[in-house]
């Protein structure tokens, strides 16, 4: 069953995420993917996450497909203009990629090539519309395609936006993304289930599946770092304390993730696990949750 079908027929879907390496060595990435294969409904492959130059999402998605995993091709607007974006979408389809996650992308100044020219010819909303247009057999210029894709497009939303205005805008943008063709959402990492539940109530009427994001906490330091530097992520003090006082960080990290995912089962339509290097621990988490 592919990801699209899983969203239709399952009550609660599971996706994970891998970030390609800097370089051509894909052994570890594929090993990690192999470990979680069959336990998740799809795996996202990030697109130069944090604006750090690495192996591309499309190539790794293609490799996953070859290994029998349904990939979600993350595509940002940071590095490509509308010609390159559309062309890469067609290429991705030809390589067997069926799911696309449309993102704006971090600014280049955040990464390891801060001198780079930011592109942002399109934004996540217009990219979604372009995907829809390609699905209909036309490019942005209105030219007919010889052979059209049939992508399953998704987008992201940040339920933990830190001010009321920011949250309101997130919801408005979410609506725009749905109008533009988004069929599913994956969220930024969530640590406060009460806030998330409130958010889900507000977007219930959109009737578009939301996969709550879970970032595996590796340490108290990581939690503090995210609170300071990652927009929309807030780890509450009790969780930081838990990580600080534990003798077994891995065990506690898994316990926290399990609690969050159990909580999400009644709130949203699935979970998106971001392990950030701890991909090997995902099977343990899922086993504990009973997924």
């Amino acid at each position: 069953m592919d990801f699209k079908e899983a969203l239709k027929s399952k009550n609660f879907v599971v996706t994970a995420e891998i970030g390609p390496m800097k370089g051509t060595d894909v052994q570890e990435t594929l090993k990690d993917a192999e470990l979680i294969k069959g336990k998740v409904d799809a795996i996202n492959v990030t697109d130069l996450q944090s604006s750090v130059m690495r192996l591309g999402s499309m190539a790794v998605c293609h490799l996953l497909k070859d290994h029998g995993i349904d990939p979600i091709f993350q595509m940002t607007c940071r590095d490509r203009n509308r010609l390159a974006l559309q062309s890469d979408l067609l290429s991705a389809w030809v390589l067997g990629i069926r799911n696309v996650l449309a993102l704006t992308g971090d600014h280049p100044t955040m990464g390891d090539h801060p001198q780079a020219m930011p592109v942002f010819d399109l934004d996540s909303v217009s990219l979604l519309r372009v995907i829809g247009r390609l699905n209909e057999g036309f490019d942005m210029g209105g030219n007919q395609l010889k052979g059209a894709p049939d992508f399953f497009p998704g987008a992201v939303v940040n339920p933990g936006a830190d001010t009321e205005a920011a949250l309101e805008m997130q919801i408005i943008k979410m609506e725009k993304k749905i109008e533009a063709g988004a069929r599913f959402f994956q969220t930024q990492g969530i640590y406060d289930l009460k806030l998330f539940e409130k958010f889900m109530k507000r977007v219930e009427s959109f009737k578009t599946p939301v996969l709550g994001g879970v970032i595996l906490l590796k340490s108290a330091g990581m939690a503090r770092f995210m609170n300071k530097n990652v927009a929309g992520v807030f780890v509450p003090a009790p969780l930081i304390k838990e990580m600080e006082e534990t003798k077994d960080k891995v065990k506690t990290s898994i316990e926290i993730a399990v609690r969050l995912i159990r909580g999400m089962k009644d709130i949203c339509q699935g979970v998106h696990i971001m392990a950030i290097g701890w991909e090997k621990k995902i099977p343990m988490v899922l086993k504990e949750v009973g997924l």
Partner: protein
Amino acid sequence: MIKFEQKPFEEILGYLTNDKSIFILRCKGCTKVNQANAESDIMDMKGKIEGKGIDITGSAIKGFLCMKAKSVLEELSETIGNPSSLLIMACGLGVQSVAEATDKIVHPACNSFVDKETLKTGKREYRCRTCGDCVLEFTGGICPLTVCSKGLLNGPCGGSSHGKCEVSKEIDCGWVLIFERMKKLGRLKEFMSFLEPKDYRKIQKKKIA
């Protein structure tokens, strides 16, 4: 207004490798920026060039080189003498205007920046990119192309935090400004509008009115 700052001297000296003599022209600045230290900038530059085997035929400080380069050069024609090149201490506009008005080699001595004040109040392209397809109707009179670091047209990215931009905590998130303004005006319906990607032909072939 464009703010200028002197390039590292070693870089300037590299430009002068083939020069036997130069004339130094410093812009006096515009109404608000670049006015301070004009005299000492020239003295400083002269001091650094002395002893490098390059003759300085003279120097001058003149305002608004961007607009008055031609008349300034006419006025200075005798003072300038016959140097092998001109060293211009001005913003990129000033250097280009001087280059347009003379057949001599023109060396830029400065790097140009948009200063913070200008970003807020400037009336040139920093605030309006003359995109040829104005969207201010939908954005509360605040241009998303110039006020958002990514020039996004359909709302903020995920990097907006506490009303600030992911690029720097010193920069306001443009979309928060737009949202708050539209909300205050009771125009959130317009805020919802989808804005089409820009037609870059209109930006490249700017009409000069």
